[in-house]
C-alpha cells in the first residue's frame, strides 16, 4: 500500500466515531434524498407514469350490443389514427349484493380473458385474474369494499349467478368496476341489455380535439347510433390529478427540505472533519507530503465513509421507498411506482460530489497553509474566543459545570452556528409536519363532512337515461320519509339531517353540477365555511370556491339551476370548502327544489346521537327498524378519506423522523468534535473533581442555548413555511382554504415545538457527553 493509502486508511481508522458519523449522516442524507427525489418524480406526473406503464386507453367507448356486432367493432381497430386497440369486450351493468356488505350500487362488469397488455393493462393488486366462470376481479375503486373470497350475488338477474372475488385490480383509465371471464357474461346480462366495450390508443392523443377526432374516425366505419358512451383519458387524468394535486406541494416541500438538509449536514460533517484534521495535515507536510498529496489524502478520508454511507443509504432509501411508493401508488391510482434509476444515480453523484468538493475545498486551504502554522492549529486557536461569555456565565448563580457549558458555544461560534442550523432545520421540519398533518386532517374533515355519528347512505345518484343505474335492474328506492321517521323514532337520536343529490346545469357552464339538497339543519355536519354563512332559508345556497370561479359569481349573487322540472334561482350566501366533484356543487335546502324536483328519493341520512349513546348499539338497533325499508345504517361519517390521510401522515412522520435524526447527527458530530478537542480540558476538570454527572451536565449544557435558540427560530419559520405551502396546495386545486385549515397551531403546541430544538440538541449531545464522562482522566490528561 502506498504511503498515501496508509495515511488515508489510518486516518479513517483513527477517527472511528467521526468516520461512523460521516457514514451515518451520509446514509441518512442519501436515503432521504432517494425517497424525496423519488417522491418528487412520482408527484410530478403520477398519472402519466401509471398511464404509460399500463398502456392506458386514450378513449374507451361503449356500444349498444343490439345495434353493432363484435365483427364490426373489430374492424374499427383499423380506423385512421388508431395505433392499437383492445376489445370488443362484453359489458353489463349489474347491481350486486355481497355477503355481509348490504345493498350494493350498480356496477359495470366487463368480460376479459386476461388483464391485457398493449392497451389498458389492468394491474392486479391482489390475487389473480379469473380463470373460469364463477370468479370475479373487483376494481380497487369499486363501491364494494374488495375482499378476497367474498361472495357476490346478483338477485336482480334471473339466472342468479354467485361470483367469488379472486382478485383486486385497477385500470388506470377506470374502464370497469369488475372483470370476469367472457364466458361469464351471458349470465350477467339481462335480456335486451348489455353492450360492448372498445379501448383505443391513438397516434396523437394529447388534446381533447385529437381525442374527439379519433372517436369520429372510429365511429365513421360503424352504423350510426351504435356508440352510447365514451370516456377520454384526459377526463380521467383530470379526475386523478384533482385527487392528487392537493398533495403535490406537500411532497415537493418535504423533498426539498430533505435535500437542503442533506446538503447542509454533509457539508457540515465533512467540513468539520477536515477542519479538525488540519494539524494532522501539517504533520503530514512536515514529514514530506506535498500539498497535493495532503489534499488527496484528506478527500480520500472523507470519501471512504461517505461512499459506504452512500451505498447503505441507497439501500435504505430503496427499502423505505418500496412501501411508501406502494402506498403512494395506491393514492395515485397506480400499482407499479418504483424508484427511478436516474434518481439513484443523481443522488449518488450529487452527494459524493458534494463530499468531494467540500473536502477538497477545506483540504485545499489546509494544503496551502505553511507547515508551521498548520501544526499550530488546535494549540493556540479559539482560546481567546468567548471569554466574555465565560466570565458572564461564571457570574450567574449556576453550578460551575452549567456555567462552563453555557459559555462553550461562544468559544466556537462557527461550530455552534452549524449545529444550530441543523437543529433549526429539524425544528422547521417538525413544526411544518405537525401543522401539515393538522391541516390535512382539517381538509379531509371538510371533504368528508363526517361529523355525523351514523349515516344511512343514499342509493346511487340519478345518472340519467344512459347512466349505469338505469334499466330494469335498478334497485327500488327507499322512501326517505319512512327512513327519517325510523331515525326520529330510534332511541338515542340526537339530531339528523338528510341530503339528496340531483344534477343540474348552470347557465354558461358545460356539463352538470351536483345539487345537494338538505332536509333539516346540516350546518353541524362537517361543512367548513371559507366565507359567508350557511344556508338558513329556502332559496339560499352555499358553493365551493371553484364554482364561484367558474361562474364568475360572488357571495350575494344569484345563479339559476336548469335541467330540472323548472328553473330554480338561488342566492349564494356562503363559500364552502369542498374539493369533491371539482368543486362544482351547490348546497341548498330541499324545499328550494320542491317544485323543480319533488322526487328527492336518493337521500342519505346523517345522524348525531345523544350524549352517552353507544354508536354501535344505536346503529344495530336502527338497522333492525330500517331492514324492511331496504337501507342500512353504519357508524361513522360518509367518507373519512382514511387511507390517503394515513399514508400521508405516515409519510410525513417517516420524513420528519429522518430529518430529525440527521439534525441530531449534526449535533452529535459537532459536540463530538468539541469534546475531542477539549479532551485534555475535560481531563483537567475531572482531575480537579468534576464527577461524571457534572461532566455530562457540562457537555449537555453546551448545546442548550443553541438548541433553544434554533428551536425558537424554527417554530416561526416552520409556521411560515406551513402558511406558504398550505394555501399553495389549495391554489393548486382552485380552493381557497379557510382559517381553520391554515391556523392549526395553538399556543399550547408551540411551546413543546420550540422545546423540540432542545430535544434534538440533547439527543445529539448525549452520546458525546457520555463518552466525555467515561473517558479515563489519566488518558485525557495525556492527550494532546
Amino acid at each position: 500500500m502506498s504511503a498515501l493509502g496508509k495515511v488515508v486508511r489510518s486516518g479513517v481508522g483513527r477517527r472511528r466515531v467521526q468516520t461512523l458519523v460521516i457514514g451515518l449522516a451520509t446514509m441518512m442524507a442519501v436515503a432521504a434524498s432517494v425517497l424525496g427525489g423519488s417522491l418528487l418524480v412520482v408527484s410530478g406526473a403520477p398519472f402519466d407514469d401509471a398511464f404509460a406503464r399500463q398502456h392506458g386507453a386514450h378513449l374507451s367507448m361503449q356500444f349498444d350490443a343490439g345495434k353493432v356486432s363484435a365483427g364490426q367493432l373489430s374492424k374499427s381497430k383499423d380506423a385512421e389514427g388508431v395505433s392499437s386497440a383492445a376489445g370488443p369486450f362484453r359489458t353489463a351493468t349489474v347491481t350486486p349484493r355481497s355477503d355481509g356488505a348490504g345493498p350494493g350500487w350498480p356496477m359495470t362488469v366487463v368480460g376479459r380473458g386476461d388483464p391485457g397488455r398493449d392497451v389498458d393493462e389492468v394491474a392486479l393488486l391482489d390475487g389473480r385474474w379469473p380463470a373460469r366462470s364463477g370468479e370475479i376481479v373487483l376494481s380497487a375503486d369499486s363501491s364494494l369494499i374488495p375482499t378476497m373470497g367474498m361472495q357476490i350475488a346478483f338477485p336482480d338477474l334471473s339466472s342468479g349467478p354467485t361470483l367469488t372475488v379472486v382478485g383486486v385490480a385497477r385500470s388506470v383509465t377506470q374502464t370497469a368496476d369488475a372483470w370476469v371471464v367472457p364466458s361469464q357474461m351471458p349470465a350477467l346480462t339481462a335480456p335486451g341489455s348489455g353492450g360492448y366495450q372498445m379501448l383505443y390508443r391513438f397516434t396523437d392523443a394529447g388534446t381533447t380535439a385529437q381525442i374527439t377526432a379519433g372517436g369520429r374516425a372510429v365511429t365513421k366505419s360503424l352504423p350510426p347510433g351504435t356508440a352510447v358512451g365514451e370516456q377520454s383519458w384526459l377526463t380521467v387524468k383530470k379526475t386523478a390529478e384533482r385527487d392528487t394535486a392537493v398533495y403535490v406541494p406537500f411532497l415537493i416541500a418535504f423533498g426539498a427540505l430533505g435535500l437542503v438538509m442533506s446538503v447542509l449536514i454533509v457539508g457540515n460533517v465533512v467540513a468539520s472533519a477536515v477542519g479538525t484534521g488540519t494539524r494532522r495535515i501539517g504533520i503530514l507536510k512536515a514529514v514530506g507530503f506535498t500539498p497535493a498529496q495532503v489534499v488527496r489524502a484528506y478527500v480520500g478520508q472523507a470519501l471512504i465513509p461517505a461512499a459506504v454511507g452512500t451505498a447503505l443509504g441507497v439501500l435504505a432509501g430503496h427499502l423505505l421507498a418500496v412501501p411508501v411508493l406502494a402506498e403512494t401508488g395506491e393514492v395515485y391510482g397506480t400499482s407499479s411506482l418504483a424508484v427511478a434509476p436516474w434518481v439513484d444515480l443523481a443522488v449518488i453523484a450529487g452527494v459524493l460530489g458534494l463530499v468531494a468538493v467540500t473536502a477538497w475545498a477545506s483540504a485545499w486551504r489546509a494544503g496551502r497553509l505553511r507547515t508551521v502554522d498548520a501544526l499550530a492549529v488546535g494549540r493556540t486557536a479559539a482560546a481567546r474566543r468567548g471569554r466574555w461569555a465565560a466570565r458572564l456565565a461564571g457570574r450567574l448563580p449556576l453550578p460551575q459545570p452549567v456555567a462552563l457549558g453555557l459559555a462553550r458555544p461562544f468559544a466556537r461560534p462557527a461550530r455552534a452556528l452549524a449545529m444550530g442550523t441543523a437543529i433549526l432545520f429539524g425544528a422547521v421540519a417538525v413544526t411544518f409536519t405537525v401543522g401539515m398533518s393538522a391541516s390535512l386532517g382539517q381538509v379531509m374533515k371538510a371533504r368528508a363532512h363526517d361529523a355525523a355519528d351514523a349515516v344511512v347512505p343514499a342509493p346511487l345518484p340519478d345518472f340519467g337515461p344512459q347512466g349505469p343505474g338505469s334499466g330494469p335492474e335498478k334497485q327500488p328506492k327507499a322512501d326517505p320519509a319512512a327512513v327519517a321517521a325510523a331515525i326520529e323514532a330510534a332511541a338515542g337520536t340526537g339530531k339528523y339531517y338528510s341530503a339528496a343529490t340531483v344534477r343540474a346545469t348552470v347557465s354558461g357552464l358545460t356539463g352538470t353540477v351536483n345539487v345537494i339538497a338538505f332536509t333539516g339543519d346540516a350546518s353541524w355536519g362537517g361543512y367548513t365555511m371559507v366565507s359567508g354563512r350557511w344556508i338558513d332559508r329556502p332559496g339560499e345556497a352555499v358553493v365551493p370556491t371553484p364554482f364561484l370561479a367558474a361562474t364568475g359569481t360572488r357571495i350575494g349573487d344569484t345563479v339559476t339551476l336548469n335541467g330540472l322540472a323548472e328553473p330554480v334561482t338561488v342566492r349564494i350566501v356562503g363559500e364552502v370548502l369542498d374539493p369533491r366533484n371539482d368543486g362544482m356543487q351547490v348546497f341548498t335546502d330541499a324545499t328550494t327544489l320542491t317544485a323543480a324536483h319533488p322526487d328527492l328519493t336518493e337521500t342519505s341520512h346523517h345522524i348525531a346521537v345523544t350524549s352517552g349513546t353507544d354508536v354501535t348499539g344505536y346503529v344495530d338497533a336502527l338497522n333492525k327498524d330500517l331492514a324492511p325499508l331496504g337501507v342500512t345504517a353504519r357508524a361513522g361519517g360518509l367518507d373519512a378519506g382514511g387511507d390517503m390521510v394515513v399514508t400521508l401522515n405516515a409519510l410525513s412522520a417517516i420524513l420528519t423522523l429522518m430529518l430529525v435524526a440527521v439534525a441530531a447527527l449534526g449535533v452529535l458530530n459537532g459536540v463530538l468534535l468539541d469534546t475531542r478537542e477539549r479532551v485534555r480540558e475535560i481531563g483537567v476538570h475531572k482531575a480537579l473533581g468534576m464527577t461524571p454527572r457534572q461532566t455530562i451536565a457540562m457537555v449537555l449544557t453546551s448545546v442548550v442555548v443553541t438548541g433553544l435558540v434554533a428551536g425558537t427560530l424554527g417554530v416561526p419559520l416552520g409556521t411560515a413555511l406551513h402558511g406558504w405551502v398550505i394555501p399553495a396546495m389549495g391554489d393548486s386545486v382552485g380552493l381557497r382554504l379557510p382559517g381553520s385549515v391554515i391556523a392549526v397551531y395553538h399556543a399550547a403546541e408551540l411551546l413543546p415545538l420550540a422545546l423540540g430544538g432542545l430535544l434534538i440538541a440533547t439527543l445529539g449531545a448525549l452520546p458525546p457527553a457520555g463518552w466525555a464522562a467515561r473517558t479515563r482522566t489519566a488518558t485525557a490528561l495525556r492527550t494532546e
Partner: protein
Amino acid sequence: MITPVIELREVSRRYDDGPPALHEASLTVRPGEAVAVLGPSGSGKSTLLNLIAGLDRPDTGTVTVDGVRVDRLGEAGSALYRRSKIGMVFQFFNLLDDLTVAENVVLPARLAGMARGEADRRAAELLELLGIDRHARAYPGRLSGGERQRVAVARALMNRPALLLADEPTGALDTAAGQDVSELLTGLNAEGQTIVVVTHDLALARSCTNRTVRIADGRITEDVRSQAVGSQVTASEAVR
C-alpha cells in the same frame, strides 16, 4: 499511632500485555512528609501517582489515602475523592486558557459546591500567599512558566487537600522558575502539607523533600528518609 495519609499494599498494575508498570509496590506516607518519587522514564512513577490520585485503578493490592480506599472507588467516587482529599500539580500546568487566573483557582471549590463569596475569598488568599494576586484577572497565556505553576499550585490547594501530588512540577520550567517552585513546595511542606512529588530532577528531590522513593521497572527499589529540608523555609518566606 499516627494514621498514614497514603498506604499502598502490594499494588500491581499492568497495561495490556506489556510488563507490569507497577509490581507489588507497598508504600506508606505519614502526614507532613514530603516524598520524592524518582526513577527513569517508564519506571512506573506516573502509574504510582495516578493510582494515588484515583485516576487509575490497580489490578491487585489496595490504595488507601486519608482513610479512603481509593481502589474501590468508581468514577463519581474518585471525582469526589480528588475534590476533597487531593490537590494536583502537573508538568504542563493544565490551566484552562479561556479562564482567568482567579477563575482557574476557584474552579475546584466551585465544582465542590462552595459558595461563590467564600471561594473567591479563599482564592484571593492563596493568590496573595503565592505572590500572584496581581495576575488574578489575567489569562494564563500571559504568565511565565513559573507563574503558571504557582497558579496550578494555588488551584491544587483550593480545597485544603490532605495530600498535594505533583507530577514533574519543574519539568517544563527553566532553572530559575524551577527553583522558585521548589522553594514554594518546601514552604508548603514546612507548614504541614503532605506532598508527593514525581520527578526526574534529583536537585528538586533533595531540596524540597525529606524522603526519597526510587522506582525501577515497576518495583520500589529504594526508600530513604533524610533530614527535613524544608523546615527552615515557610511558604510565606518562599514567595518573598
